[in-house]
């Protein structure tokens, strides 16, 4: 087949879409669905600008994944983390001025949220290791690490935050 009909949940909304089989998830998000918050950097898995969360926890490079092989999966982009007001990571990036040009920021926010969902109490070393796949040309990383440390104080995310996310998804699925 050259095109495939798939079910994909994006930012809590269950979608039935048809995608060209050779389209990357990055292009599905940006070109087909309009989620331009997910950025294109290198296209080969090196920079992390295209990072998304898959199935609520793990991070993935959307430039390397084919949407056509993600049938039934759930994808969250930086915009999806803000569907109920900014999440703690996004607020912390503002508070710590962890943004300069901003190109890496959606990927950083997504990756940091994924990190804190898996490990709500990371050491500085763990934060730096987990963010290895996200390149920032501007900040020098220290402010980003501080932002993740600030956000960690709000993790694990409160039950209401998770419930909201899950309800939003359940509503969208029905």
């Amino acid at each position, binding site marked *: *087949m*050259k095109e*495939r009909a798939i079910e994909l949940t994006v930012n809590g909304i269950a979608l039935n879409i048809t995608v060209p*089989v*050779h*389209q*990357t998830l990055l*292009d599905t998000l940006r070109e087909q669905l309009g989620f331009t918050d997910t950025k*294109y950097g*290198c*296209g*080969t*898995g*090196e920079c*992390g600008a295209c*990072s998304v969360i*898959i199935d609520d926890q*793990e*991070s*993935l*490079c959307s*430039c*390397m*994944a*084919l949407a*056509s*092989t*993600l*049938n039934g999966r759930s994808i969250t982009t930086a915009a999806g983390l803000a569907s109920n007001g900014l999440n703690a990571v996004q607020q912390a990036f503002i508070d710590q001025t962890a943004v300069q040009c901003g190109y890496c920021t959606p990927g950083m926010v997504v*990756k940091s949220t*994924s*990190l804190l969902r898996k490990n709500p109490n990371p050491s500085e070393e763990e934060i730096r*290791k*987990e963010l*290895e*796949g996200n390149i920032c040309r501007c900040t020098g990383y220290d402010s980003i690490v501080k932002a993740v440390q600030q956000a960690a104080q709000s993790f694990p995310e409160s039950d209401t935050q998770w419930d909201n996310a899950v309800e939003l998804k359940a509503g969208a699925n029905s």
Partner: protein
Amino acid sequence: MSSRILPNFDLLVPNSTSEAVNLLAHYQERAAILAGGTDLIVAMKMNYESEILISVSELDGLDYIDFDPNSGLHIGAKATVSQILDNADVKQHYPALWQAANVFATPQIRTAATLAGNVLRGSPAGDCSCALLALGARIVLQSTEGKREVAIEDFWTGYNQNARKPSELAIEIIVDAPQSATGSAFHRMTRVNEDLAKLNGSVRLDMDGNVCKSARIAMGCVGPTTLRLPKTEKLLQNEEITPELLAHVADMVPTEISPIDDKRSTAEYRLMVSGVVIKRLIEQAATAAN
């Protein structure tokens, strides 16, 4: 070539292993298997084309990692490097594999990359592949004709060449159960963490007190495939591990490898550090065993 747009192909998404091997039997060389895509998609963005891709994404039940003290470790072909890293049995019983997963690529890549893909790609710089060679892993291949098991050292037959037939699907990787005093370790050298290795190595020792009963030693980035170092292994067999023995080992290692100059390092440097890397890995594996 484009880092953004992939060449055209036909995608097939079988639901079961039997459906997948039927497709492979029919299409043979015309089809390539797509797992996490972290090698294949990059290759397709560079220059590689395949008329047909067969995705493993919806194959039932191949994402397991099962450990049994008798039959060892069984890793399904869809299990990812990230799953290896999260697995307590791997961490406890197969430290070399866990350590390789721990330095492997970035979290985003580990979510997608499969262990089977790493072995099938067979890069001489493959990290989990290097640990699996030292641990003595076997790969299980299935076709419509049946299943066969191939020891990993017989599987890689040359640079970018392996023993898989076009009709075969890799379904599992098996690593024997450790004995009562088995220890293993992995190390790689890189310029910065997220680089591919300029050199990697892994050691598995079966010990009896301070005496090494048998050793398996693997080194990568020093030949067309990841290599075993049989002469060095033999030096250790039934010997007590002493500083003098380790000095012999460090001298022997460079005689068994044939590194080249490339963008990550030079042959000269690789020859110089190889002995020390293996010496330290032996010390680490011996400590892990006892």
